[in-house]
């Protein structure tokens, strides 16, 4: 059989297209997936917290929740702010809600201390960037959990978290700890840590340490997916705000101002 130069080129082109077609198709399909908004399907509960800053403000010197958390989780207290490790702490209103600022605000609101902690987001950016799977969103209760055994200290999660909820252990935390709580581990130098909503307490049917310690009742903890829960009732009966919802992270810590 004789084949002309033109026919040969046509055949080669067609074969190449057929061979690469599958790959091209899968690449396009993958690009489509990556662009689609990554909405996570939540199967079980979504644990959340409602912080009533009005009740907090009634007790300006109260640090009960912070102390209870520090004691429960062996959180070191470094004097050097660069070494600070924080799970739950206060920040001025203007820093917590930068977009809520108006020209004429009630006196003192800008400086008003607001409790902040990990938001246990619906779509946590920290989880997406973690290269080792040391942080993940638990499917059954929505907690953004950490496995300190697996954390390699790359701090991608700290860069990804828009709320600054994560701290890095620059120094061995045991050098800045008083009495240790023997039932909870400390962390080691080179590991990232944050609030975990106390899964070790939830497993025993207890509330998170901060919620239990709050005598003012400013912290309400519960399941957002349960229509009968107290937190759902509260969210449905009063106006609440979240930190930077425009980012699409879906924070699960709500505030009453």
């Amino acid at each position, binding site marked *: 059989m004789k084949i002309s130069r033109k026919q040969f080129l046509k055949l080669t082109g067609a074969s190449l297209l057929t061979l690469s077609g599958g790959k091209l198709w899968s690449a396009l399909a993958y690009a489509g997936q990556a662009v689609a908004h990554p909405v996570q399907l939540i199967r079980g509960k979504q644990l959340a917290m409602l912080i009533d800053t009005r009740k907090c403000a009634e007790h300006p010197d109260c640090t009960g929740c912070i102390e209870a958390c520090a004691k429960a989780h*062996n959180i070191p207290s470094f004097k050097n702010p660069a070494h600070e490790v924080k799970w739950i702490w206060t920040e001025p209103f203007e820093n917590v809600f930068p977009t809520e600022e108006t020209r004429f605000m009630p006196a003192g609101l800008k400086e008003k201390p607001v409790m902040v902690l990990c938001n246990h987001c619906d779509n946590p950016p920290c989880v997406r960037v973690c290269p080792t799977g040391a942080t993940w969103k*638990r499917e*059954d209760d929505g907690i953004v*959990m950490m*496995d*300190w*055994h697996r954390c390699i200290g790359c701090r991608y999660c700290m860069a990804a978290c828009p709320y600054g909820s994560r701290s890095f252990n620059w120094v061995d935390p045991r050098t800045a700890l008083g*009495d*240790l*709580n*023997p*039932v*909870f*581990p*400390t*962390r*080691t130098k080179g590991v990232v840590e944050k609030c975990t909503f106390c*899964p070790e307490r939830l*497993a025993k049917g207890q509330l998170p340490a901060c919620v239990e310690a709050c005598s003012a009742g400013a912290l309400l903890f519960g399941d957002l997916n349960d229509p009968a829960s107290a937190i759902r009732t509260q969210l449905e009966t009063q106006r609440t705000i979240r930190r930077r919802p425009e980012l699409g992270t879906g924070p699960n810590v709500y505030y009453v101002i």
Partner: protein
Amino acid sequence: MRDRAWILLGLGAFLLLLSSPLWWNMRARAGLKGPDLVSPADQKDCVLPAHEMNVSHMQLLLQWRDKVVRQEIHSFKAYDGKVYDMRLSGTCLSCHEKAKFCDRCHAYVGVKTPYCWDCHIDPAQTRPALARRSPQ
């Protein structure tokens, strides 16, 4: 064949020399003393039979770690049906003393102290009175 005796003697000496490491080891092992471990006085059963704990406690601890942290399973049913909380400080060290059990054996066999203790706390350091479980 006049040197038969010498040859046999030499051969015997050579074999003796060749097998000397074996004799040496047998002699050394006769006087060998194991690590001086302090076992819990009031507890006889561990979560696995003792010989299994000897060889595979490290795998067990890794399994416990993954189950608790990643799979949210907290209790472990032992071979004898008893149920334990899967916790290193809370369960293992409520019976064993780290310094007189874990560390002594690790030192004896020349195994580096694992980095478990960089984070997990030896209760003996925080509450000396409760470090040993007192029979009630």
